[in-house]
């Protein structure tokens, strides 16, 4: 009996402190450590400066979309149309750019500005429709964004006939796709800017606080004098605008406008949020963790590429990770309740 007691106290201590960390920070740090250990042992090239910078650059698109997704999730909604918004933005901006550039090969700056504006406006307009449906007509976010996803995707296919749009000014890709500043790629700079602005928006402004409030308790928010319809409308437009920015950056990277580039984003952006501890019921979530969640997905995808895991199999792994994260979050909720009595 005493022998047993001694041998079981040490692991129990370890277990309980692991538990405490788990309750405090969630499942993400554990997943990160596990992923890095696994992939470092599988490939020598994994934990190198070059590869990590590579992962960061690849993750930027997802980070931007996931931040928008998070803001919608905070209010208790979903945005399933982010993928189609990326596609539509890509197609529209590429069409405008190549048209202007084709008409006059000297008007590079004009082509880029007009293309970017057109992409942003059209992409955000999908968000305007989403927001109007959810806020004014009480359509469930699930149905509204699913429907709009089909609409936007259909429009992008219809515009291009499913064929990529070529003929962009090469400077666009040189700057926004492959360019760098102080040895850091442009997309990373853009993403850092978005992270910073979003952080301030969410944590240091009234409107940001209202995102949490509306998701936490919409009735209480209305009785506290918050214009809940405006807030709901606002988040869908924000999410769409962020998806549109990601679409513009992806277009620059691919040097073409394509309708088929967004399909994986709805799932991956929601996964990044959930793995980062955003509550699907709304009202809870931190942007730092969402960024980490998106980077984690990038790390896993990169690791699987280096380990030569087939891409179809990677999709399976991602789905499993998402479910594991949700289960872990449920467990955590239970521990939190015990911890607070």
């Amino acid at each position, binding site marked *: 009996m005493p022998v047993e007691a001694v041998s079981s106290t040490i692991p129990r201590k370890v277990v309980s402190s692991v538990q405490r960390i788990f309750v405090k920070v969630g499942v993400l740090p554990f997943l990160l450590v596990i992923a890095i250990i696994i992939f470092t042992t599988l490939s020598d090239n994994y934990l190198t400066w070059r590869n990590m910078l590579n992962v960061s650059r690849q993750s930027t698109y997802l980070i931007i979309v996931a931040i928008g997704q998070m803001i919608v999730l905070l209010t208790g909604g979903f945005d399933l149309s982010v993928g189609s918004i990326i596609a539509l933005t890509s197609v529209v901006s590429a069409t405008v750019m190549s048209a202007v550039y084709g008409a006059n090969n000297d008007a590079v700056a004009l082509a880029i500005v007009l293309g970017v504006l057109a992409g942003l406006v059209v992409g955000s307009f999908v968000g305007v429709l989403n927001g109007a449906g959810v806020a004014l007509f009480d359509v469930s976010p699930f149905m509204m964004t699913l429907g709009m996803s089909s609409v936007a995707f259909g429009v992008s296919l219809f515009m291009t006939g499913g064929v990529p749009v070529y003929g962009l000014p090469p400077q666009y890709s040189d700057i926004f796709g492959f360019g760098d500043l102080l040895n850091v790629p442009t997309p990373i700079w853009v993403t850092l800017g978005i992270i910073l602005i979003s952080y301030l928006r969410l*944590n*240091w*402004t*009234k*409107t*940001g*606080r*209202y995102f*949490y*409030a509306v998701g*936490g*308790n919409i*009735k*209480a*928010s*209305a*009785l*506290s*004098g*918050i*214009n809940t319809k405006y807030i709901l409308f606002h988040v869908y437009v924000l999410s769409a605008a962020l998806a549109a920015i990601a679409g513009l950056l992806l277009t620059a990277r691919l040097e073409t406008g394509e309708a088929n580039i967004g399909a994986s984003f709805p799932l991956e952006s929601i996964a990044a949020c959930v793995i980062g501890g955003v*509550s699907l019921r709304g*009202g*809870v979530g931190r942007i730092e963790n969402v960024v980490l969640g998106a980077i984690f997905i990038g790390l896993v995808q990169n690791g699987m590429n280096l380990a030569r895991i087939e891409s179809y199999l990677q999709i399976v792994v991602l789905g499993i990770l998402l479910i594991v994260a949700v289960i872990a979050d449920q467990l955590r909720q239970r521990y939190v*309740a*015990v911890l*607070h*009595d």
Partner: protein
Amino acid sequence: MSQRPPQAAMEENIILHCQGISKRFPGVLALDQVDFDLRAGEVHVLFGENGAGKSTLIGVITGAYQPTSGRMLFRGQEIKNQSVHHARSHGISAVFQEFSLVPQLTVGENLALGAERENRWLLDKRAMQNEASAIIQKLAFPLHPNQVVGHLSRAEQQMVEIAKAFRSELSVLILDEPTASLTEKETARLFALIKQVKAEGVGIIYTTHRMAEIKQIADRITVLRDGRVIATVDADAVDENELLRLMTGRVIEQVFPQINYRPQEVVLEVNNLSTRDVDHVSFYVRRGEIVGFAGLVGSGKSSAARACFGAVHPRWGEIRFRGEDVTRSSPKEMLARGAFYLPSDRRSEGLLMQRGARENISLPALDLSMFSRFGFLRRHAESRHTRALAKQLRLQPLDMERPVEFFSGGNQQKVLLARSLTRDFDLFILDEPTIGVDMGARVAIYEFIAQLCEQGAAVLLISSDLPEVLHLANRVYIFHRGRLKAELQDADITEENVLRHFFGGNDGHATAQGAPARPTT
């Protein structure tokens, strides 16, 4: 039966006996060595405040919870590892406030739920229908097995819930605040049914907050406080004051503060207001007074007050606040004008349960320059101010970042009340301010309300808790079925006077007035 020696009769008739039941939840001892017994054919009232342990005790008896210690005897035999299913098989059935009905299914389907009959592979719908009809007929309920439950009134749904208890042989019937949402007519029906069931030798455990009901139907009363049994008494051996003292551990004078009312100018004036469930009511509230709204649940008292804050849309009538017409203002505008509303349901309408006290307190005040400038939050000022307010209201524990769902009901209410101090309000509309709040916090909240009034604010107090209205208000409006039945002042505010108007019935005046207003339903 009465000729037998009482002691022997008692021993014979005990159906259920709980000995030293304790139940510990993480961090709370919800039940502490509770002894409780139930005889056949009696109504045994469980009486106590919210959080006294009534629900937990019922949970243990129905098998929803396993007791941490203690034992339970059913007809003299110990039952162990009780589950809900197991309890049912002993004929122990409970009817809760929250109905366990599927609204989309019919009465018959609900009655058969979990005990469906099949012939080979298919449902035997006819047999189930016949059984449902038989139960309904036996209980003489005005129901039909084919009615869809979702379309029934709350009272009718409750009948379905009670009928469910009668599906099998019944020996213990538990009714958890069954009259909370019933009209007086429906209540009378329920009481008749209880008599009928009693006569069949069923033991009934009954919880309620209403003294008047206890007088009408109780045989014995067990008073719980803080998870302990304070006393078990015969119903005709105690009076109300004694019960109140047992329940709270205090006499009335220690609970309610003395208030100096100094009514001044009118702050809120309402003329001929009609909403979905209020019908042409007029009232006013002055500075320096506490106006009470009394009435049953669904009498329109809450709806009328919510209309004044813009939370309910008026269909008709005029609302004036400090002399200005505010009839169709939004809550946002009313807040800015200086009206504060405390919702009755703090979980669904008041708090962000997963956020901390700081964010909850500052929420309706983020517009103020104290908390934000050019749309940017002043988070340090916010922390400082909200902490000071929480301290002033004695929030326990004083942890501003702990999610409010982990606070007790009383402390959650303090967080809500702290909002009222974020700016200078002229009108306080307090809707059930002490619902689900323990005695200590309740006394603090009464003190707080008294202070508001004495500092010259206008207070509108809506409460289903009669003593609260009786002791705090200097004027009382009594609502009945969406109409104003009476206005009482100062010395006229007595329990007798209020109750007379509560149930509407006995003076012809009201019915004559009420009849044309509700031609059809």
